[in-house]
């Protein structure tokens, strides 16, 4: 079977985010960009399924401008077999992204699609669910364990109440949570090898996808800051202030 994995280029998770003074967005010029950490986990999950002999091919997909090929190369260096770059300079929101992945699912007929549970830039956490809706396929979001068993999969999901187990028929969409795995480090020979792996570039028009009605961002602001507090010298002093505020008895 084939596994399709989504890869998004985002501001690196270590970067301290700064809002532009004119409210038009956050500063991205000269800022380190990386693969969305949840997508790295998704790639790793797909590779492990392949290495267990349960899949033949892992295909990494990204949507965005030319520079996003850097993240596809990372996915290829990790071990993906080939990559698809849906090239566009337009902003792509989750519903349009889901339409693109739906078109790719029609074309590639994967048995499994693994996406990160959210991108750490817009924090939407929508793409996997929307894709599942458009395909009419099962969804298993926030996965911390995936076990493939023939034509179905058992997925353990991290939910507010604990760990939920779902059984889904394949094809299915899974979204990767933090504890699904620890992604491998890419070694230099793999980076060299990845340069020879194919990246197919296509456009929204090639896929017959039109932009969905979009949410308009009117402005971007810095969040309200908490006032810096004080250091207390002792437990007694701490207990005294908390009692005074009525927070403890």
């Amino acid at each position, binding site marked *: 079977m084939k596994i399709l994995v989504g890869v998004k280029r985002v501001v690196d998770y270590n970067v301290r985010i700064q809002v532009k003074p004119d409210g038009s967005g956050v500063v991205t010029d000269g800022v380190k960009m990386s693969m969305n950490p949840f997508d790295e986990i998704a790639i790793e999950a797909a590779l492990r399924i392949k290495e267990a002999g349960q899949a033949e091919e892992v295909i990494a997909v990204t949507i965005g401008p030319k520079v996003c090929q850097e993240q596809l190369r990372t996915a290829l260096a990790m071990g993906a077999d080939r990559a698809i770059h849906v090239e566009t300079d337009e902003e792509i929101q989750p519903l349009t992204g889901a339409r693109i992945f739906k078109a790719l699912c029609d074309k590639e007929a994967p048995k499994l699609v693994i996406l990160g549970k959210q991108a750490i830039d817009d924090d939407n956490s929508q793409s996997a669910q929307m894709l599942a809706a458009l395909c009419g396929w099962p969804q298993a979001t926030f996965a911390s364990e995936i076990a493939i068993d023939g034509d179905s999969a058992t997925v353990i999901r991290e939910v*507010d109440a*604990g760990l939920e187990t779902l059984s889904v028929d394949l094809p299915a969409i899974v979204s990767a949570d933090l504890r699904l795995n620890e992604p491998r480090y890419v070694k230099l020979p793999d980076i060299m090898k990845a340069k020879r792996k194919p990246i197919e570039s296509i456009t929204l028009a090639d896929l017959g996808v039109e932009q969905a009605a979009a949410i308009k961002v009117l402005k971007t602001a810095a969040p309200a800051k*908490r006032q810096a507090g004080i*250091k207390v010298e002792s437990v007694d002093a701490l207990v005294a202030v908390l009692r005074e505020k009525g927070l403890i008895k």
Partner: protein
Amino acid sequence: MSKVLIIAEHDGNTLNGSTARAVTCAKDLALDAIDIVVLAADGSSVAEQAAAIAGVNTVLLVQNPANENAVAALLAPQVKALSSDYSHVFAPSTTFGKDLLPRVAALIGVPQISDIMRVESATVFDRPVYAGNAVVTVEAPAGIVVGTVRTASYPVAPNGGSASIEKREVAVDLPAHTRYVSLSTGGGEGRPDLQAAATVISGGRGVGSEDNFKVIYSLADKLGAAVGASRAAVDAGFIPNDHQVGQTGKIIAPDLYMAFGISGAIQHLAGIKDAGTIVAVNKDADAPIFEIADYGLVGDLFTVIEDLEKALA
């Protein structure tokens, strides 16, 4: 007529408090009506609890054996069928709402607004991005507005209402491709719910081991508090995942949050910035958590907890 439909989160018997938080947010929309839908196998008691929330007009009760457990692939087509009577469809931004609502939005064919933290108008909202390090003001396009509500931004709507309860049949085909198997809870028995508790005691990597977490639990019990944790503590296996607080865990807003041995990664801080008072105890005086703590105490967390227990005795 503009109306909002809120999807109730529940376990079959009890309405989750996040639903009443979504009602508080929905009031800011200033629409003609606020309705709640309870999708359940039976759900009678859940519907009664929903009807008691002040400001709710009608509770729709959709009884179907397929609704025994909240499986998004089964609930979404039912919500979509009901949505045609509404201008807005909301759910709490819990793992329940985050799983379900994007599927609903895509079935309807509209985008979804995640984590609404402020309502500016019926179509304009504020929401956090980049782990809460920026806030965007967004406008929904024409069509049904589908959104999840950041529950930490809204208090629970009080009781005192008496909405009517209407049973509804929803005639849609439900898929058989997704089966609920089981739920294992993290053993928080008898302790307050992390997302509803007035006080939360949290431990991080500095706690050191699963065994050491006993001191966190002990202090929490003394204060009637819920127990939280940083991602590092959960990753290390000190405590189950449902205690994780932060960007990818639970976003909470207790009156008092006490962090022990948590350095304060931005992803963790994203989960607590709405807390009333933050207390941080860490042996590293330069830990970033002190930058947002109201009261910081530099010291060994075990000694501090021991002294706290004595002082509270």
